[in-house]
């Protein structure tokens, strides 16, 4: 996890954030029968939170890119090649 470390950790944090956003205790705050800007508050919350989470994940994943140009240094990620180099390494 050395090379992709920061990105991996950010994504785990975002996963935990997602759990918080979309499970009961926190979810209950918005589970109210009001209408905000013409849209039921609960719906508005769910879709906004969802979209925000996706944007954050996209930022974390794509901006983490420069840290992660070669996910596995010295080993092309395509299956067969990585397989072959692993074998080669053994010998």
């Amino acid at each position: 996890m050395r090379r992709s470390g920061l990105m991996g950790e950010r994504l785990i944090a975002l996963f935990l954030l997602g759990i918080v956003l979309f499970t009961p205790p926190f979810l209950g705050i918005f589970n109210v029968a009001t209408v905000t800007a013409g849209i039921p508050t609960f719906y508005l919350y769910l879709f906004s939170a969802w979209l925000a989470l996706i944007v954050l994940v996209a930022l974390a994943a794509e901006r983490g890119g420069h840290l992660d140009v070669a996910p596995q240094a010295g080993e092309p990620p395509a299956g067969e090649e990585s397989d072959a180099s692993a074998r080669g390494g053994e010998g």
Partner: protein
Amino acid sequence: MLNGVTILTVSFLYLSLLFAIAYYGDQRADARRSLISNPYIYALSIAVYCTSWTFYGSVGRAASSGVGFLPIYIGPTLMFILGWHLIRKIVRISKVNRITSIADFIASRYGKSFYLGALVTVVAVLGILPYISLQLKAITVSFGVLIQYPDVAMPEDRHSASLLEDTALYVALLMGAFAILFGTRHIDASEHHEGMVAAVAFESVVKLIAFLAVGLLVTYGIFNGMGDLYGRASESEQLRKLFTINSTGGLVSWVTLSVLSMGAIIALPRQFQVIAVENTDERHVRTAIWLFPLYLFLINLFVLPIAFAGLIHFPSGAVDPDTFVLTLPMAEHYQTLALIAFIGGLSAATGMIIVETIALSTMVCNDLFMPILLKVGRLHLSERRDLTGILLAIRRIAIIVVILLGYAYVRLIGESYALVTIGLVSFVAAMQFVPLIVGGILWKGATERGALAGLTGGFLVWLYTLLLPSFARSGWISESFVTDGLFGIALMKPYAFLGLTGFDVISHATIWTMLVNVGLYIGVSLVTSQTMIERSQAIHFVDIFNRAEAGGRIWRGRATIGDLRELLARFLGHQRSEASLARFERERNRRLDPVSRADAEIVTFAERQLAGAIGAASARIMVASVVREEMRDIDEVMQILDQASQLIVYSRRLEEKSRALEAATEELTEANARLQELDKMKDDFVSTVSHELRTPLTSIRSFSEIVHDHPDLPVEQRNEFLQIIVTESERLTRLINDILDLAKMEAGKIEWNVAETDPRPIVEQALAATSGLFANKPIRLETAIAPELPIVVVDRDRLMQVVVNLVSNAVKFCDQKAGLVRVAAWREGDRLRVDVADNGRGLAKADHAKIFERFQQAGNTLTEKPKGTGLGLPISLQIIQHFGGDIWVDSEPGKGATFSFFIPAADAAGPAAPSRVAAEVT
């Protein structure tokens, strides 16, 4: 415009377009210019997750429970955020091990277990059946609704229709045919279906556009935007309830569905297929972790508006909410949009059915049938080289059977469930794989028996709490099973097992299956032990990334020194292995801690030690099996790991070796005997040669001494003696020449000037050369040489030597008073035949073969003066045999002798092939 013909035509055109895309995708794949190798196609192909259930069913569920449909898409979003860790790991493992399906994945993790692979296959097929039947139902219903345009009405209950009138059957058969065309046109060694992925990505775009189009029309065409829509909805007490989750049960269901869909997104066979098996580049996962959730977000954006619009538009409840996507445009007479919506739904269903049945058929073929067929030795399948025909047949049959079973389910269960509920039954089944996958890639200690127990337990609970009750509801088995429990025992109620109440059916089943599954999986794993292959596979799966980071040092973190010590002890014996390890410690001046990780040095050392005992190849496999598993060698490893079979193998090898030794000994004995014989022959030869040489030498020497010691000898006598000396010297010279000749010929060192030759001048020349022998002797020469003799491939000097030899022999041995020598030459079939006959006293039968041996002359050489060197005939024999012919004698005592030889003609394919002869010339 919107009638049956139009709908069918457009549908067929659309399906043909899909097929064309798939075909093009395959072409590009064959040309190594992959169409699908980019993260966007990858993310779109994963959107096969959105089936007709999403397309029609989400709206249906939203109409009854508000946001209740949403966790099915938020769960995968959360899972994909974890994807960088979990999914990428699954993808990597699948690539490295060439995993072909989820059954293959699970079986490999737990020691390439056949039973586990087969069980996963069975669970997957049974579990996914409702899901496939859901797609068939959706297509059938949507077609039934659309065809009634301009009326907006629900199609009649299909139960009344006979089998032949049932649209669903034709839909099923058509889908089966398409799946076969897409997935089993040929067997791909890598199990990649690039064309299929391309088509699936395309249909994902189509269904998204179709759904968004309907959503935009409904929200902004039929209503004046979201505000208007929700404003009108909030006027109704009934609809306002849908704005929130009102009950604890609703929240529980929310959480359950989130968890279920988190699992389903990786554990549904078709999702595993597109995510792991069809992945072309691991880096695509990075984009997919946000792009796929974005797709889910977009396709769900208008679900609630459409649901509310439908509820407002059709307040009577006569229209099934599952059909709102279709019926809203129809009611407002947007014909084209209704058709687009239908195509979107068809697209969603088709994509799901194709990928799902291909994934299932691969599992049925690779993990269920082939292992069984290969184990049934009688079929000799393992010896057949080309199994692709059988593979394809099994897969095609599997596809048809799965789809027909899905059809049977939809006919059986009928209309008793909404789309979403049917799909969730399958989700719970797929969920049973999740502990095995997630546990398998995170926890090294999980065992095969733990996995078998967990999956079996979870599956049985699933059957009991979900599948059987669905049969009961449709009246197929007694309803009392659901209401009163099995045998009337209240605790055995499938929807309130052991008295657990307060949950919806799906949550109830999820709780129980997961409790049993995870409980047995962990519990049994903790009390059972892993076989060696399980352990190495577990380490291989869990540490897949560590291996890459360690670069070439692949053994890091894989085996402990204790493991190696154990391995050595098994093959070398305790004492020897301890002694060699102690020596290692002494020499390298280091201490071996049994629990510390084995490094390169010790691994190499262990391998070398093993190689001494079981050979390098086996040692490498054995060490590799501890250090790291390679699927490719799994059969070898199995063979060697199984100690019993290993003993058999070794004893068999020993037997073979001792048999080979015996054979070698026998050969040696024979060779020895032959050598002794040759040795004796050589001794004989030397003694004969020295005898033959001494005779002329003795006479030369004695006559020389006489001449030397008696200078007063009369001139005549002296001349006579000198003449003898000259003659004997000549004989000696001839003898030595002959011996050299023969020795050279036998050693193959003589030079042959072979060419196609007319034998007639040779024979004539030989006769001319020997004419001197007849002079002053009462011997008559008769010749009968045919005018046309076949051309032969010979060395002319050597052939002449043979004829001269035979003629001079004949002159020597013929009747000395009225001698007759007869020479004949003619074509006999496709060979040259030459006879030289005399009228001498002939040869006894016993001598016929003997005279062709060296220094053997007929008669008694001790009492009679030898008339030749005794080497003429052996030399002739060598020469004639070299030309591919043979020489022999025909004779009886007192009746003369006839020496004959033949040489194959050049125009006949004789045994002396010219090429061989030519080679010897050079």
